[in-house]
């Protein structure tokens, strides 16, 4: 089957029930998308599918079809996405493991709502778990990015 990931077509031959997460990480080596819980409760594995934030651990690859997938590696070529720049500028990350999922969730939010309110951010981001407790900084970074 052909998957379009980060604007590139990949011809892959895998069990169609394999969740997208493992296709990305094990088959294609795109390890920026993280495995956190595998059951849809932490959102570390968030990618964009046709621009929507989706949990790659829950989606069997056979459901993707021709939809376009964007992973953290494809958010920008060089870390220049406003969210990536904001994260670096105000120093969000501690261990950093959940942050690709946080950034992808925020990217989908900014696409829908370029100027989100604090309530918008809280409500959109409140399924993403950060075990280090960087939530306040994540929110600040999203606000900063939305001003660009």
């Amino acid at each position, binding site marked *: 089957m052909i998957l379009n990931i980060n604007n590139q077509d990949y011809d892959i031959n895998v069990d169609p029930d*394999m969740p997208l997460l493992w296709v990305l990480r094990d088959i294609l080596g795109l390890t920026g998308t993280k495995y956190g819980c595998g059951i849809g409760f*932490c959102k570390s594995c968030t990618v964009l599918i046709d621009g929507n934030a989706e949990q790659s651990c829950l989606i069997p690859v056979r459901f993707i079809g021709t939809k376009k997938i964007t992973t953290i590696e494809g958010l920008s070529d060089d870390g220049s996405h406003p969210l990536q720049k904001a994260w670096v500028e105000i120093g969000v990350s501690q261990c950093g493991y959940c942050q690709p999922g946080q950034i992808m969730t925020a990217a989908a939010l900014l696409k829908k709502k370029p100027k989100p309110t604090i309530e918008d951010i809280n409500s959109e981001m409140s399924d993403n778990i950060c075990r280090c407790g960087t939530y306040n900084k994540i929110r600040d970074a999203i606000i900063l990015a939305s001003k660009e």
Partner: protein
Amino acid sequence: MNEKNNISRRRFIFGSALTFAGIVSGFTSSDKALAELIITGDGDNKIMSFAPSVWVEITKDNQVIITIARSELGQGVRTSFSMIVAEELDADWDLVRVRNAEGDSKYGNQSTGGSTSIRTFWQPLRIAGAQAKKMLISAASLIWGIPESNCYSEKSFVYEKNGNRKLSYGELVDKALTLPVPPANSITLKKFTEFKILGKTKWNYDEPDIVQGKAKYGSDFRIEGIKYAVILRCPYISGSLQSFDDKDALKVKGVLGVYQLSEGIAVVAENSFAALEGRNALKVTWKKNSDFSSEDIRKEWIDRIGTLPNLPANTSKFIEGIYEVPFLAHTTMEPMSAFAKFSDGKCEIWAGTQNPQTARTGVANALGISNANVRVNVMLSGGGFGRRHDNDYIIMAAKISKASGYPVLFFYTKEDDIKNDDYRPASIHVVKAGITIDGKPSGWIQKVISQGDVSPNNPIYDIPNITNQTASRSFGIRTGPWRSVDYTQNIFVNESLMDELAHLAGKDPYLFRFELTKDTRLKNVLKLVAEKSNWGSNLPKGWGRGIAAFVGYGAYIAHVVEVSVSEEGKLKIQKAYAVVDPGFAINPGNVKNQIMGAAIDAFSTALNTEITIKNGEIQQSGFNNFRWLTMEDVPDFDIDIINTSETPSGMGEVGFPSVTPALCNAIFNATGIRIRKLPIAYTSLISNVEKKTSIDNNVEFEAIPIPFESSFKLFIKLKRWNQSKLSITIIDLLGKKILETAIELSGSRYYGEFNLPSVASGTYYVLFSDGIDSYSYPIMKK
């Protein structure tokens, strides 16, 4: 930033994983006569560098490579260690590259725990930077034929004073290699007033990689021919394997083999999904060797309370009580994982770990090979919190690689991780403390009962007649270090009890503490946090404010937490104030990040999380029933740093202990309800509503059984109502909706059954409304 990271990756990240830098003159040490010449393969180029110690290398292309011998868990050690070396070296920060030390005794103690990294390495790393700088200045002075005193260093260059000659550190490598390494006692370190890097915020060195998905954690290790492995472990505490059948597992496409280890049954496959599918297909019979539940533990511990001694005769009033704290899992974001490649009698490991030295010895012992034949390479950890002191996952990876013959990435699922953790110990604290007639503490007695892994801490205030006792009864539940270790329980108890004593004495909880210490650093953090939080000022109705303090890890901290509790019992943490005195803050921005993160950790565990056991089995399995706070639940923070000395302290853990009691003291201030049992979810915070409805006497409400196991029957009868349609909502203590439904009253009554099998234990509130009047009742899930 990108260029910088590409360079560091080219040299250090695992493109060249299994081929390492050649060190020409053997291993380095700071008292050796000459610096090391290190040659690193870099495609067609050879980069040469000089290393006066194991901590710092300077390459001919003018990079500074700093070796970090403690593990990055999110506490910022890669950044802060680099800052220390770069400061004394006068390095250009943009030319600094960071590499992790492999597990090796030449680096000293590599155990990342107890918030010791900065305190242990502060002096050695400063000396290492200054030694290298001194040699580079010597090299320039020899090349130029001028005295060293006519040379100075700045941003990776040596300059001639009053001249225009300059040489980069890279250009000085050849000459520096011929010079003796100056002994540590000949080194002059900078004055604090001369610092250019230290004391100013540098954000996480790895941030540019993290935000692009390029940062590599243990579970991200990939190599040609890699296979993936998972393990099925016995679900019962102290249980064992009886028999297993792997026929179906081996039929799963992609499964390469099934191997029995002492830890369980391992499945190796071409990818993670196949490994998990193969594991699902295993048929295993386990033997249960114990059948106890959390209530049995509690009962046996309560039985060991005995009789506490008497308080002194001058006691006029006293408090007696039992505080309880549960087991906790670490649940790092990244479940435990490790890469192992065993071949030709040697084993190579790539993993996040808090102790690569014990991992090395553990692997060597498990495989029956010598330490010299094991190399443990340290990668980023997706959180540690103490969990990665136990290298069980690394040892399993090594065993599976040996058994299967494959290079394997072994990983736990989140459920494996929660069920096979080294838990934060549970404990029961029986306390008795009194005050004299003039409101001063008269005595303090605390007895801690646990599996034998918790003992009391003395209060940090001037309290006479302290008696500490312990008792234990083990149930074979694995426990281990968990962020802030015993302080997580003890400071909750001590600082809550201080609050109880203050109220007993009729004194303000802040002033009560302030007047009971002569330690000026403690007084100062208390005083400033009281000022910042406007302690004593009026709060809105339903709000409360609590204070607590902690001294440890070389630092002082005080917290004030503000909460509100609604009439429905809904708790909101409104604001948290912290004042920390770290001695000297190396990296102030990161200090604040750590203090904030630790507080959120403490709020989460105080409110919601616990590990419970039923019939010998851990009941929690994921983030659904071991819940962490998310963005909408966290308060705003106001964090201040007081620098008081020239000695920095550890910041990874100090921010946790006093948060829990400050929160519970705030709840008491708001509601009059004293939290003595964690998590708080066990306590109903409804105070006003019950009173109101009983006066009103309009409602009959019954939920059966309470506490309920997975479902309960609800009976509601209203004497008068506005509409026959009732909306029923079940919320948790933070007001999150668990269930929402609308029902018709049949006459004045409603009967129904509610199923909540997958929610965590604790208090929930049944809210119902006929559109005008609304009512709230607590229910409890076992």
